[in-house]
């Protein structure tokens, strides 16, 4: 997905520390998420707050957000990058402070990937099922791509 949808993906150091496990839906065991191979393949870039400005913004945002979200918002803001999150607190803060950050959600990324790569519905359905079972992620009712997800997930 990362290679074919016309987007470049990056994760901040703090967010990478927090992305720890997926769950095996059968055994219930936790399975460590390995980001390093993706980074080495050049599919994922690891970012850290570097400039004084970014570091201060990171600290300021860390007053109300957790590290992963704070560093991601700080870097997205200062480097003019789009941010994919469905974290309500982070999104509320971005809206409230009027930050000029283009917002995506994990669900909108998947939808973009399906459209851009013309992925057939059965394959997309399989990806959504995996996302739902292994990452326990599904969009909330009322979110922009909820209907798309629901339609594709229905039996």
């Amino acid at each position, binding site marked *: 997905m990362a290679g074919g949808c016309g987007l470049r993906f990056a994760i901040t150091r*703090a967010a990478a520390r*927090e*992305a*720890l*496990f*997926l*769950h095996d839906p059968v055994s219930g065991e*936790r399975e460590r998420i390995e980001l390093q191979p993706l980074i080495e393949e050049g599919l994922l870039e690891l970012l850290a*707050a570097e400039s*004084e*400005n970014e*570091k*201060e*913004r*990171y*600290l*300021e945002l*860390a*007053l109300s*957000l*957790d*590290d*992963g*979200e*704070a560093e991601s918002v700080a870097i997205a803001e200062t480097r003019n990058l789009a941010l994919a999150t469905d*974290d*309500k*607190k*982070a*999104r*509320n803060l971005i809206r409230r402070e009027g930050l000029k950050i283009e917002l995506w959600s994990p669900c909108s990324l998947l939808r973009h990937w399906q459209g851009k790569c013309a992925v057939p519905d059965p394959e997309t359905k399989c990806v959504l099922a995996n996302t739902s079972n*292994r*990452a*326990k*992620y599904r969009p909330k009712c009322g979110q922009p791509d909820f209907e798309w997800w629901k339609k594709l997930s229905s039996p």
Partner: protein
Amino acid sequence: MSQNILEKIDPKILGERLKSARRELGLTQEAVADKLGFVRTTVVAIEKGERRVTADELLAFAKCYARNVSELVKQSAFTEALTPQFRAALPNSQLETPFPEDQLMRVCHELESRAEDYLELEQLCNAPLPRDYPNQYPLEDSRVSPEQFAEDVAQEERSRLGLGDAPISDLRAVFEEAVGLRVFFYEMPASVAGIFGYNDRLGGCVGVDIGHPWYRGNWSLAHEFGHFLTTRFYADVDIMQKGRWGKQRAERFADSFAANFLMPRSGVNRRLSEVEMSRRERITIADLVTLADYFGVSVQAMCLRLEDLKRIQGGSWDRLKAGDFKPDKARQALGLLRSDKRHAAWPVRYLLLAKAAYEKGELSENQLVKKLRTDIVSARGIMAELDSLVVSEEGKNFQLFPWIWNHRFRQSKLLRHGRHYHSRRLSADQPPVQRAV
């Protein structure tokens, strides 16, 4: 911007947090200075709050101590209000084998940290924990023995809480909901059974080892409640070591209180009479095991209680032990399944507050994860299960005080150590435990 953010953080509070993080790792100021390329006096000045940190320095400290930046800069005051109490309560001077102080302090810190999180969730949801605390019972002023005093207090508390003399099917719910204590179950080092701390802001806080069986957890809860009733302002760390407490009045009281509160004299006598009358024979081991399960205590606790009440011969428990009696096997043979259960880690109300705060956008996903001491995927699973329970019950959004759902909730997969109660009458086909006590 630099001035703003770093000036928002009180240097004294930040210094305390950095000092505490360094100490937890057992590092000296010199070692930290070397590692970060500072001079030692810089670390000293920052920890004392005499010098403000720069953004670079703060990020370097966070990395060095493996701490989240958000933890270090959060605006709530660094209180550690219970810590000095706990330090004073560490019972090493009374132990035959001293217990590593850092291990004990970790248990204490964890209780304080969970209680602080609980309070923060209440503040985010504007839902303070209702308290119904009785006045302290003055143990030191009493002219009777701690055991007699414990029986009187247990009766009075049972009556105050409307429990009569029946078994308490969900002791934790009574303490959380009717009294307003903060009760947490989490991993503790072997031989630490439970701890208790109190201050006006957090209220009464109890921590119990999550590894203990359900009935052992009940005993610890009742024991710590005994401390809350009499010596509220002195923290307690309950370590199981032979002969530890000797004749300390407070400990004799707490243990006796637990026995009387969980197994009230009249309730036990009545139940025993019913059993005896129905069969017209002496109490058997099966009766003992079933009675223990009925009152939610260990077989040992029930046996000693019956000895104390003179319903069985003194020394019965010692004889059973000498005869290689295995309570777990006996429970299994009788199908008393709840003995395998464990208490749930979190109060139901805590989970619901966390869910409410998360859904309102007051708590980010990672903050939720930290509140639940888990990983993102497990936290999502917990939220989803809360969703399914709440929605299926009422068909609408939940409220913050869904006590009515508690029973159903406690039986859910989410709280997989729930307390299912399988009431089993004795049957004739249970030979392994059918001997007379």
